[in-house]
């Protein structure tokens, strides 16, 4: 079961995230639980695979906003990193960065599963 302590252990800034949710813990946890299913994760992975950097940027950009708002700091930081690289059309091997995001994504899925 997803808890505040588990998110803290994940590295989330839960105080800040809860603050945005009017200090309503249930509301905060409900929003966090929606993150693993965010379609922008799969879109980001697919676009990177197919070298569609524009599509990847849009997906990363959207993820960045959602992750930031909930203060899921470790994965948010990676989202910021990849967004800025993609915004600048940086040609590079995105696989290692995507792997890091995937790992954190998986961790989040695990935390959110009952």
């Amino acid at each position: 079961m997803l808890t505040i302590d588990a998110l803290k252990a994940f590295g989330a800034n839960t105080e800040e995230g809860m603050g945005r949710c009017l200090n309503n813990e249930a509301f905060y946890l409900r929003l966090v639980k929606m993150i693993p299913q965010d379609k922008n994760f799969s879109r980001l992975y697919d676009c990177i695979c197919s070298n569609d950097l524009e599509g990847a940027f849009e997906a990363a950009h959207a993820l960045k906003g959602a992750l930031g708002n909930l203060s899921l700091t470790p994965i948010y930081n990676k989202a910021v990193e990849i967004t800025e690289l993609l915004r600048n059309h940086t040609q590079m091997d995105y696989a290692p960065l995507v792997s890091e995001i995937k790992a954190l994504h998986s961790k989040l899925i695990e935390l959110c599963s009952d």
Partner: protein
Amino acid sequence: MYSKAEDMRRTVVVAEDEITNLLLLGGILSIEYNVLTAENGVQALKILKENAGRISLLLTDLIMPEMNGFDLIRTVKADPELEKIPIIVLTSSGDAKTEVECLRYGAVEFLPKPYGMPATILARVQRIIELSEDKSIIQATEKDLLTGLYTNGYFLEYALRLEEHHHERDYDALVLDIDRIKTLGDLYGEGKANRALQLAANEIIGYLADVHGIGSRFNQNTFYLLCEHQESYECLIQTIERSFSALDTDVRLSMRLGILPHIRNEEFSSDVMGQFMKAAAACSSLKAGGPSSIGFFDEKLQEQKRLKESLLKDFDQAIEQRQFVVFYQPKFSIEEKPSLRSAEALVRWIHPERGMISPGIFIPLLEQNGLIQKLDRYVWEEAAWQEAEWKKRYGISVPISVNVSRIDLYDPHLVQTLRSIVERFKLDFDEYLLEITESAYSSDMAQMLDVIGRLKGEGFRIEMDDFGSGYSSLTRLTDMPIDVIKLDMSFIRGLEKDVKKQDLVEIIIAMAKKFGNLVVAEGVELEEQFNILRGFGCDVAQGYYFSKPVPADEFGKFIEQKCMQEGRVC
């Protein structure tokens, strides 16, 4: 059923495809607002159209499926029904290029992601809505609906700002009145009158654009303008007059333009309305209804106005404090050895701050403002008391004449009042004479005849003052039961040099005497005048030849001389 507070809640629309962001922002905003949500631009637009006129704010993400934020902003701003809705863009911080683009499209503010704390978001949203509503109110109320010129309050505010922002410019304040607009409305209907005002306003707006000015329709047919100084405003007047030809009426509209040129910065800043009041004073000093005219503010004229207002304010206190002092001017018999016959009581105002005030200023002022009766009564009492004092002191009687104003003649208690004064001070009627100015007789002949008849019936002697100063009618000499005519000083001035005038005076004196009236000449200043009047058989002379009006104490010397002449011991 909604509560009143629920009804008053404003509605905002949030367009955001990222569901967590949408729920989060919607949750925060729902504390203060009704929130409608959309997951893309198309949905948002549909909601906006369905609720047109009821949406206070749109918050939109930029990257959304189907219709992105940029297209949504453009579409909203191009739609007359929606264009006034303020838009906040939900954006990632640090993307300056995108922000500039959004502002160009018409967004007013940004909410960066990650969002700030709820209180901050709510405060920003509230401020944006307030500013937008204020702007809408201003747009709806700043212009006069009929003419498109500013309404009063906004005009004065904008005039102040214009002048403040352009200190270096030389501005004029103008007040323009259009005369006979009401006549036009009465004869041709209100629509025609409004059309005239619109035509004038159109020309004013065009003119102001050339002279860096602003204007307002201040009331029905009055316009206030502020513009850079112009040497002449003839062309403005002519242009407006020409535009009136489109009205196709017989009513000849004309204008009066009052100008306060070269307004002073500091005076304008401290009292903007006061400056336009000066222009309005210049405007109202022009003759209404004549051909169009232009007048400039005259500081002297304004000073006179201020003085008059101040005197009116001081009047009651002046009566209480006995600032009005009665002077006496002697009247002498016209004979080889002139002797004192009587005196005229003339009031002077010795103001504690302004000193001696000319009766030429305060008497017409009090007449115009319905205060002269109070002063007349004061003088009547004072003169009667003085007459009684002199009688007691010198043992002889020097009749005093007092002035009765035209308005006194309409007082139903006049006869009673004067009689009671005479009785109270134990005077005879031939010791207390009444001077009634000639112009009073022309107003209501029947009324005058009645009042003067009743005064005569009591025993008073009546002197017709200022005879010949107005539209004289010689028939009055026969119609009116008067005892004395006082020739106006205009007959005497220059008499010694003007043969025609001499002929006229001779005839009037002869005629008056024929009807049994005594004749008094006023304004006698020279020995030649005295001698000519003597030759014509005039009875009495008054004027500087003998003495100016003097205070009661000083007048004593004339009585003492009379005593000596008559061999009396005073």
